[in-house]
């Protein structure tokens, strides 16, 4: 499984990270070497092995469905790049 330059452009698009043409080849080469290392896993027989998604086999705890958060909108919006009237501002997406 080798990674093509087109695939690198595709995942950069999915990850919403701009990669300009001048750096694409270098990024591609480093990702290829990383995947070459990860590909060592392909040689391991894992037939029937249950994937381990977490350090502990415990189920997630449940809690009462009660309000626990206080209103801290002003605090949280103080660190936002652009807000107005309590709303986050982003470029227009619907004309």
């Amino acid at each position, binding site marked *: *499984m080798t*990674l093509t330059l087109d*695939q*690198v452009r595709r*995942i*950069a698009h*999915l*990850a*919403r*990270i*701009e*990669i300009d043409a001048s750096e694409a080849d270098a*990024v591609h080469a*480093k*990702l290829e*070497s*990383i*995947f*070459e*290392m*990860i*590909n*060592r*896993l*392909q040689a*391991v027989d*894992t037939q029937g*092995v*249950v*994937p*381990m*998604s*977490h*350090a*502990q086999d*415990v189920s*997630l*705890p449940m*809690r009462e469905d009660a309000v626990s958060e206080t209103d*801290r909108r002003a*605090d*949280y919006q*103080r*660190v*936002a*790049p*652009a807000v107005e009237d309590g709303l*986050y501002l*982003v*470029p227009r*997406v619907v004309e």
Partner: protein
Amino acid sequence: MSDGTLAALSRRLAAREISSVELVAETLDRIDAHQKALNAFVTVDRDGALAQAKAADAARAKGAAGPLAGIPIAHKDVLMTAGLPTTCGSRMLADFVAPYDAHVVEGLKRAGTVLVGKTNMDEFAMGSSNETSYFGPVRNPWDLDRVPGGSSGGSAAAVAARLVPAATGTDTGGSIRQPASLTGICGLKPTYGVASRYGLIAFASSLDTPGPFAQTAEDCALMMNAMAGHDPRDSTSLDRPVEDYTRRLSRSKGARPLEGLRVGLPREYFGKGNDTEVAAAVQAAVAEFVDLGARTVEVGLPAVDLSVPVYYGIAPAAASSNLSRFDGVRYGHRAARYDDLNDMYRKTRAEGFGAEVKRRILVGTYVLSHGYYDAYYVKAQQVRRLIADDYARAWRECDILVGPTAPSPAFRFGDKTDDPVQMYLNDIYTIAANLTGAPAISIPCGFTRAGLPIGLQIQGDYFSEAAILDVAHRYQQATDWHARVPRIAAAE
């Protein structure tokens, strides 16, 4: 005065030989004096620290002070600290001021510690050398031309240079233990779920673990008493009885305190990949354990050799998801120019993240993408299970596992920056404990001829922190590697 161990400083504060205000003032001066050479701190909060020190002295005067009251500490800049910058070593959060405290920050505050500042780190905790920080690399106090390890390199350097007696770190693949090893101090990664991740800016959620750095195992135990505990705000925080991590340390055990202890030596940790001086120092530490009454048993952890590829099949996937929140909308950097919303995301993230962070996001995006999920992500989780099974078998034959923390001592700046895979392999011995979730500590066990520290890793089964700390403590009572101080810290 301020270069003592946490326990020693605590005794002097309790005896009123010193005040917290005096101690903290001296600490702040030492930090200033070494900042240019070490770059260990991103933020120093002089006024806040002195106010906290005054409050700690007042609490002590009223007789309402625990062992940590008035002790200056530093937090890794991945942990949220209300009202103080929390940068994660990234341009993305260079101007971010945390609106609340992380759980471990709250715990240490409640214990009366004085927060003097936030320590430098690899960007978003991704790195093994501290060279990926937006704020420039931290330098190793033992040799300023060498890395301190990473990602918690600032905390490690600050403790090694005796700027603070203790500091917090976080460990996702070795980010506490490897820098502890490279700077000659102690660093503990507790069992996953023992210390809450609330307020820890997420990298890989099933692996991220907060833990302490200090000069001694005893000091790590004192820190753990304030860092551990159930927290409903982290759904993976474990609800278990409160432990006193120091409880085994004061028991008198005579000349053979490790009598009966079965020390497992994993064959995979003693192969050809180790630097010869590292191998020799670890062998000498094993011999010391035997002198103290332990017996050794060789064990096999065959799947552990795959821990680096497993990690890079899992951690970047988690990172690509966790770091999607940095989009220039709610917090952090936003690009100055863009055409539309998607362009804003792309440029914001291209500018805000450094090369290593972007690399890992791209790896993770690919691993999770349609058609590759089973081949990479699920496969890695299956081999993760095989590694955990190896450990479960080993625990039938031994009580602790011992080996080097890192295959080599501190390397020079630039040595591994062009080859990410070589950098990743520095964590070959530490990653497994993150994958299984079990605790492990790195303690100093010797020096190279060039004067670079060497770390010994002690791993235990789940929830064996107190036992691991006890073993480390007995070793430290018989040896003095942990008491060695780098020249730049001693020359005052």
